[in-house]
């Protein structure tokens, strides 16, 4: 663990797929299928998680306390097998830290002229 930062890091570090799941949950609380769709949408279809991979990730994130299952259900007619996941504050911090780390990496890449210029957000 880096000594100077108080930002929590998951250990071992996040995989890109895990990061994508955290990013997907950074917006809304979502159920499994919605997470898959969200990730696919946000990455223009470049990242497609399979169910096996997704639930392996969900299990890790639950264990590490980065996400929790939401108690209340959105609508009465919802499929009751569905469970909704929510980012915990800790999960949000980890995701933010990872984003910051990636931003620094991107900055370096830019300085070395590997990327042309900043894309408008």
């Amino acid at each position, binding site marked *: 663990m880096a000594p100077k930062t108080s930002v929590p890091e998951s250990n071992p570090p996040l995989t890109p797929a895990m990061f994508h799941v955290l990013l997907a949950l950074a917006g809304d609380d979502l*159920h*499994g*299928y919605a997470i*898959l769709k969200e990730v696919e949408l946000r990455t223009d279809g470049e990242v*497609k*998680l*399979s*169910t*096996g*991979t*997704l*639930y*392996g990730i*969900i*299990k890790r994130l639950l264990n590490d306390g980065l996400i929790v299952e939401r108690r209340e259900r959105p609508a009465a007619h919802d*499929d009751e*097998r*569905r*469970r909704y996941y929510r980012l915990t504050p800790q999960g949000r911090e980890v995701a933010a830290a990872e984003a910051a780390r990636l931003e620094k990496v991107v900055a370096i890449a830019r300085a070395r002229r590997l990327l042309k210029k900043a894309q408008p957000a």
Partner: protein
Amino acid sequence: MTEPERRATNRFRMLLRLLPAEFRGDFGPEMEQVFVAQREEAAREGGKMGIWRLWWETAKGIFTAAPREHLSMLRQDSAFALRMMRKNLGFTIAAIIVLGLGIGANTAIFSVVNAVLLKPLPYEHGERLLMLRERLSRSAPAGRNVSVPEMLDYRRQNRSLDAIVEYHNMQFILLGRAEPEQVETGVVSWNFFDVFGAKPLLGRNFAPEDEKEGAPAVLLLSYEYWLRSFGGDPIVIGKVFRMNDKPHTVIGVLPPFPQYPHENDVYMPSSACPFRSGTHMIANRQMRMLRLFARMKPGTRSTEAEADLSTVAAAMQKEFPNDYPDDAQPGVEATPLKAELTRDAKPTMLFLLAAAGFVLLIACANVANLNLARMVRRERELGVRTAMGASRVRLFRQLVTESSLLALLGGALGLLLANGGLHLLSAYVARFTPRAREVHIDLVVLLFTLGVVLFVSVLTGTAPAVARRENLITTLKEGGSQSTLGFVRGRLRSALIVAQVAVSFLLLIGAGLTVRSLINLQRVDPGFRPDNVLTVQFSLDFSRYTTNEKTLAFWESLLQKVQSLPGVTAVAAAGDFPLDKSPAFSNQFLIEGHQGDSTDAKPTAELNVITPEYLSVLGIPLFSGRNFIQHDHPESPKVALINQSTAQRYWRNEDPVGRRISFDNGKTWTQIIGVIGDVHEHGLDVPANDFIYLPFTQYPQNGPALMARTQGDPMAVARAVVQRLYEVDPNQPAGRIQSLEQYRADSIAAPRLTANLLGLFALLALAIAAAGIGGVMALAVSQRTHEIGVRMAIGARPAEIVRMILSQGMGLALVGVAIGVAAAFALTRAVKSLLFGVTPSDPATFLAVAAVLAAAALAACYLPARRAAKVDPLRALRAE
């Protein structure tokens, strides 16, 4: 849901089965739901192709996720198990030691069984090699050797064999090193080693020219002799030594391989042996000095080869009726070489393997019981975990992980123990088979040990886990450590105790019977006094001692010199002495006046040639008549002594002294002058054979032994005796020098070691079982503290409490003994061939073992019973 959807869901569920059950329990329904949604979308957007693509991606995902999830579960379980093991260090160490001993015993014995009985012979096409013996009739038990003309007939006329090679063993004197050396020599066909597929380590093999008459004499050295006498120096190739008055050139060194039937120092082709190449030997069908080995043609069975060769034997009898007795029905016995090499080892090794297996069973039952006992204390923990949502499968897995870890650690300890004891074990096995050198821990042994570990973890882990399942609900209801033993578990624990006692009983019986056999063997009166006798074996150099006069002069001089040594009270020479492992050679003879009635088989007896002092040196009594004297010289009438069993068999109601017998069909007659005591010549467990003794002066021997009775330790005069030998003939080496007592000890060394090993196993079993009973009773007492308190509060006296606990424990032990007795009656018959002088159901042994077990059980129950009697009723009741 439509039909295709249902089918797809079912298929997906099958795929999910790859994942750990717990994972499936947590996420399965949800994943199913996601998959259904994905499938709908895929069908909508991509049609059939989309669905195929989805299946492909999904399967890939689950196949990669499954091992990861299993591994992570295993890691968690192991970490938890290790924590639990550290917490219960006493239990952990006890279990590892018990399992380590059990697994170690099995690994060690199995490594022997594997090397000796399972592995193919280390010869090329070992499965096609046979050992051939002639037998005269189907009823005659022992096969005999073969003569040169017979071998040539077998070679020419058989249809089932690739090759027949000959072998015999001689002691020759090798000159040209610092001292003359007596070497064990194997005399073989030129292609002997080709048949065995042994390629020389150095130099070359024998070639066909080497066996031609008059070819320059050549030698192959055995690997062991080369190491021992030449320090493994390759320069030995091409060296020339004198042997049998001829130069012999070393042409090669053999690889290390099991030599059978003797461990020879050197090998020579048959033409170089002065006896084998004599015209008498080549022409005479009755000079049977050769052992034959053969290699079958591929695909031939040994029974087919046997039938084939027996046809040849029958044809020989027809062609040469004078060489075969009328009553004979010659045949050939073809034993597969592997069976021949392992015949002596097999029953003992299997017996020991079974014993080791029983030790392991006891160890497993014991650890399973310890586990069950621990489970009582862990009820709370497991109950809480169940309540918190841990599935049954998960807890089952946890328990099995713990027992597997224990078994693995036990297995590691067992491997260490086995490896440590292996050289002792292979020295022991060498007494049974020449394959002992092949004993080591190889991949097969490791796999076996792994299998044992698996077996152990299932046996020790599943029982408690299963018992737990039954008990889950009661535990939570009863709420913890004070709960009484669950019904199922209590019964299981009792059954395990009963099993331990029963199996211990079996092992103790096995050990008891072998120990009694050993005692009986040691008590056998050998017919001679083995104490304080020195024996020196050697073969006189026949190329120099060519006449009886020269041989007799040598002996007269040597015996006189040794007799005058201080400490020597008597000295004798003989062709053989008891227990020297010389083979039995029966000779037929005629009894004067009985030649006519030849309906029965002809009388036969073994022969030995002795000097008069033989009787006093060995302490053999003379029952009637007289001993040999100096006057029985070469020219005087031929005389003989016979032993008692010969006298009883052929002169039942008469005095044999003064009767005459003939060894040459009545051409010359030999008078019986005395009857002496029977001697166990071929082993304490072998009854005394019929023996006829002839005087040394009338039949001088080149290959005899010198025996000296001494006042003190016979080995103390060994050096002086050898010095006297060199004084008489500086070129005459001594062979084996050993006390007769040592021969006697060696002759029962194998049964002694077997008894020791079994005794060790049985003691181990007894200790484990006793500890098991003690542990179970201690637990029962601690669980019944409350009940005991109540009983004492209402007036039960301590003695009654003690009796109650003892009777509970002893009840289990006695049921175990009863089952053990029944099993022992059924099983010990299998080991009959290993016993001597004791029946497999020997009542004394059974009673003694039952008493020992009962005593051990009583002692084991006593401590917990006393603790029960000291229960303070007030405190016991308050604790509730």
